[in-house]
């Protein structure tokens, strides 16, 4: 088999796979976004041009969901990174049972988000939940975790904070895992030199650890931001988007447009809007953490 044939033999199946499973549905959805189409009641789609895009841009409901999504990401991602990095640092030291601890820390990530959310829903139940029972027994207080009360000092509703905390519980191990992998790439000689030079902890983190883990943190950030935009199961089980719309992030709204209102045109248009936002953030993160990070190294 010649080089060209061999090339085709390996490449064509991959390209076909990519086209059938990724590109074709994407193009189909893009086409759909220019039509008004209710799959359940309208048999023939009506071409509306950019009408769906105009509608979603002018729809205050969309912007409200965008704000909720922003708040949700701004709470959950920093929490996940702070905890994930801290745990990775703790586990970086040679401790007895370090591997077992790392495995235990990974458990939340291995549980289906639906199961995790259900578990927390019962734990945080206002009337029969274990958390409130403990709070009531020891502190004579109760918190309505899925309610609209504002969290002191944060100004967000408890319901949104709870969803963000549950997401943090699920995804912190992912950050821990990646950062642990990043830390393991620091050469032993560099660490020994830092010990000899008696470099302070802050300087070690800033000049030794951070440059090594920066690309991996960038990758983690891209993945987590993308995933946070797509959060669905946790919200569906914990709050169904409520109370009111307080935890209804943009993906949940798209789901409602598509599968409750059967408005596939608007749902597709909004999905592409979200895709553009995600691509924008991805490009920024790639430039800052990975491409520029690579140049610096």
């Amino acid at each position: 088999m010649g080089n060209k044939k061999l090339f085709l033999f390996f490449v064509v199946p991959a390209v076909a796979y990519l086209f059938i499973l990724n590109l074709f549905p994407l193009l189909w959805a893009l086409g759909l976004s220019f039509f008004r189409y209710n799959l359940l009641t309208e048999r023939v789609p009506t071409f509306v041009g950019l009408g769906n895009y105009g509608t979603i841009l002018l729809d205050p409901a969309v912007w409200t969901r965008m704000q909720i999504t922003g708040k949700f990401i701004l709470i959950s991602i920093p929490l996940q990174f702070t905890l994930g990095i801290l745990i990775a640092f703790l586990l970086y030291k040679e401790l007895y049972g370090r591997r077992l601890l790392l495995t235990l820390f990974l458990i939340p990530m291995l549980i289906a988000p639906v199961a995790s959310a259900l578990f927390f829903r019962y734990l945080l139940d206002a009337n029969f939940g274990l958390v409130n029972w403990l709070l009531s027994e020891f502190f004579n207080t109760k918190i309505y975790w899925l309610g609209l009360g504002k969290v002191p000092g944060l100004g967000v509703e408890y319901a949104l904070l709870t969803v963000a905390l549950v997401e943090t519980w699920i995804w912190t191990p992912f950050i821990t895992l990646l950062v642990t992998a990043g830390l393991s790439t620091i050469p032993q000689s560099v660490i020994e030199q830092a010990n000899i030079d008696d470099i302070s902890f802050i300087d070690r983190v800033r000049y030794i650890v951070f440059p090594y883990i920066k690309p991996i943190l960038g990758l983690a950030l891209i993945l987590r931001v993308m995933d946070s935009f797509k959060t669905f199961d946790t919200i569906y089980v914990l709050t169904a988007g409520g109370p009111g719309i307080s935890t209804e992030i943009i993906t949940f709204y798209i789901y409602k447009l598509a599968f409750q209102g059967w408005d596939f045109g608007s749902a597709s248009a909004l999905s592409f809007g979200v895709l553009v936002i995600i691509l924008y953030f991805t490009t920024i993160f790639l430039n800052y953490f990975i491409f520029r990070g690579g140049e610096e190294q």
Partner: protein
Amino acid sequence: MTRKKLVPVLTLFIAALLIFPVPIFLGSPELKKVTLTIASPEWLPGKIIEELSKEKFTEYAKQYGYDVEIVFDYSPWGTYYQRLSSVFAARSSEIDLAFSDSQWIGEFSEGGHIIKLNDFLEANPEVKKALVEDTMENVLLYYLVYPRAGLKPEDAPKLIEEGKVNVWGIPGTADAALIFHYRKDLFSHPEERAAFKAKYGYELPQTYEDWAKVDWVQVRDFAEFFTRKKGEKLAGEVLEDDFYGIVLNNARDYDFISCFFLPIFWSWGAELWNETTMTAEGYVNSPQAKEAAKFYMELVKFMPPGAPSIDYDGLITIFTQGRAAMTVLWASMSAIFFDPKASKVYDKVAEALMPHHDGVRYTTLGGQPLVVSSYSRNKEVAFLYLKWYYSDTIQKELALKLGFTARKSILNSEEFLNSHPWTRAYADNIKYAKDFWNIPLYSKLLEAQQEVLNAMVAGQISPEEAMDLIAQRHEEILRQARK
């Protein structure tokens, strides 16, 4: 084979021929094998119907030449609409029949997903007769008829009889009315009764007849009176936990809060819309509607904490754990209140008519019509199932097992009224059952209403703002329908 052995073998063979019909040995007449798939919400009534269908319909179908395997396709209530509508949107033949919520009839019929049953009724006069002469009028109209704008329940039998309306199903699970439940031990406790009279100047209701006279405004008084803190006394005992006056389902999922809010809303004389002109403005935000919403918020004050998140699980847990004095629940779910294994108050619960307001009484219509999928490959057997399902004997057997029915003759029978603790209240409540929209835009209207009512209960917006917002959102949605 020796002659000695041949004789008993031959005798057995001849005996077998006499006992079993020859065609069985010859393998004919052939029964046509059919798998009949029925979509149902995952709940106890579905399981009871499945069991009965497997036991009796399979035998019934054999008379018509079918060897039927019954398969129930269950989905949880919260996602049942998505499951059913996805199957229909995909034009899939995986389902032959479905228990469809009454409000979905418009969407499913306009989309061509379910079969109009007018011809079936003409071909099966016994089913038509049972519908027209022996089925509650409101169930007939709300479960079966689309379009129904401008029609009144009392006109339904005549219109169906004359074939002047489109009929899309038969009553499937006629869990047709929300029922009021209360703790009879508390309402009849002498100390509580005396304390209540001293505070409010009138007696607590005690008998079924007393409750029939209760106005929702009084329910607020009862709720306020029975709401107590941990450490206070209730019916002579010191409370180990907070106790609440009333618990209702306020959750945002599917139609949960709407079902519990609407009996009050309608009893205040409000309407969701004008069905003929398809307008919501001035109806759902009328002064009566706002008063009803304000009253609902009065009740929320006496509900357990986290009221906006209380769903069916929450409501049932709170009530069965003895933490609330009153609640409202569907007949299909009431059994758990009387189950000693699940309920701490199994012997302390009683039912009543839904309260009225100034003489106007409503309850929300529940239950599902049974419809035939247009994409079914087993339509003949599906129609056979409808005929079997709505026969007198099966309806009676089901009613006694389920504790609810739409058949008048069964509703009025002593056997039914004595079959379950809630059946009397069910039979009285069903007359007041009313449905909401059943047009194709139903799911959008419902979603907007659920979102706003839930936000109202959470205290995010005032009752007046809530009703205005629902009107505004509904007008935007209905504008599409008016085009």
